[in-house]
């Protein structure tokens, strides 16, 4: 009984995580300019990481694998947003302004992003 409950919860989490990755991917491709795109991509860094890793930890049960998964999750949660920050900061410093106007110049933003 409890096994089935854990399975259900973990599959729900994994599916939600997968959906987050998909949404992030679609957003990174479809959104109009650089900053909105990395905003979408950062969804995979944080929400999807948490959901997928908690789902996998539930599958792994109380074992060494869970500890390793927790360590990897912590690592990804630290590095992912940092990388997104560094990317946005580098873009800002190189002169890409986060204006609404850049939506008009979509192609130019595309070439740079």
């Amino acid at each position, binding site marked *: 009984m409890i096994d089935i409950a854990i399975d259900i919860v973990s599959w729900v989490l994994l599916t939600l995580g997968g959906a987050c990755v998909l949404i992030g991917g679609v957003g990174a491709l479809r959104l109009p300019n650089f900053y909105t795109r990395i905003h979408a991509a950062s969804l995979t860094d944080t929400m999807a990481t948490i959901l997928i890793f908690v789902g996998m930890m539930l599958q792994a049960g109380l074992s060494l694998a869970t500890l390793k998964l927790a360590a990897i999750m912590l690592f990804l949660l*630290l*590095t992912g947003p*940092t990388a997104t*920050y560094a990317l946005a*900061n580098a873009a800002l410093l190189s002169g890409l302004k986060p204006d609404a106007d850049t939506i008009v110049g979509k192609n130019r933003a595309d070439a740079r992003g």
Partner: protein
Amino acid sequence: MIFVFALFLLTLLVITAIAIVRSENLFVSVMLTSIFSLLMAANFFILDAADVALTEAAVGAGITTVIFLSALALTAEREKRRAGGQLVALGAVGILAALIIYATFDKPRLGDPEAPVHQHVAPWYLEKTPEYIDIPNVVTAILSSYRGYDTLGEVFVVFTACIGVLFILGVKPPEQPADRTAESGGLRHHLIPQVVGRLLVPFIVLFGLYTQFHGEYGPGGGFQAGAIIATGVILYALLEGEGEALRAVPRSVLLGLVVGGALLFGGVGIVCMLMGGAFLDYSVLSADPVWGQQLGIIIIEAGVGMAVCGALLSIFHAFAARQSQP
């Protein structure tokens, strides 16, 4: 299921390879090369070659990217267009691809136990390793004991590559003023990457040491450990500036690591000869041949790790020093 995943990864690999060739922006190409290595590492992992996957991820996706970027900083970012020669290149690639595809017809099915490679010495290695060396990771046993000559050769290749790069890049331009390396500040003004990076560096080095000394029991060993530790130090150099990293691990230490690692490996072989065995026959190192083998493997893995770590860092610093010159 794993087959579908492998097919997916291989398709991505082909797409990435085409994108690398098509891209004219070299910066994009370097980033795609890094993605290519990461996909390749995942592929190796699917094929149960965890040791190779670890090496590919650390060297291919990690250090090579940094070294390529350092090289790019010395040259132009865009590919120079060259007229002509395309037909010859197309012909050469076409013939080569046809040959390789023709060769795959003779290839046994993936995982076929009847394949020649599983019939030759592999069964002997799998059967006798618990008896002769008694370590769980047969890959490490093959790499450092049965095929010790090959690994010694690889270490000397790394050593030679390092010396070669240092000779080419170490030449100082004539009007070179005092060292400006201390000025290249890294990411000192970017608080968030610096704080997170500082937090990670010790854990990366710790993981490298774990990989080094856990190589007999799980995936890992000197090559992977050297690359991971070098990654940690390079991250430190990127965060704090190259001068700071050189203060932490000076050039003399790096050269000592390269030379010492290669000498340690060769020295173990000589000691084996002095103790009455063959070159790199570790069984004579101790009264108990099994323990002798294990001792030899630990020492030569340490030598490999030292040489790889020192060589990669020396090459990185050679590029970085070149950059900081005007």
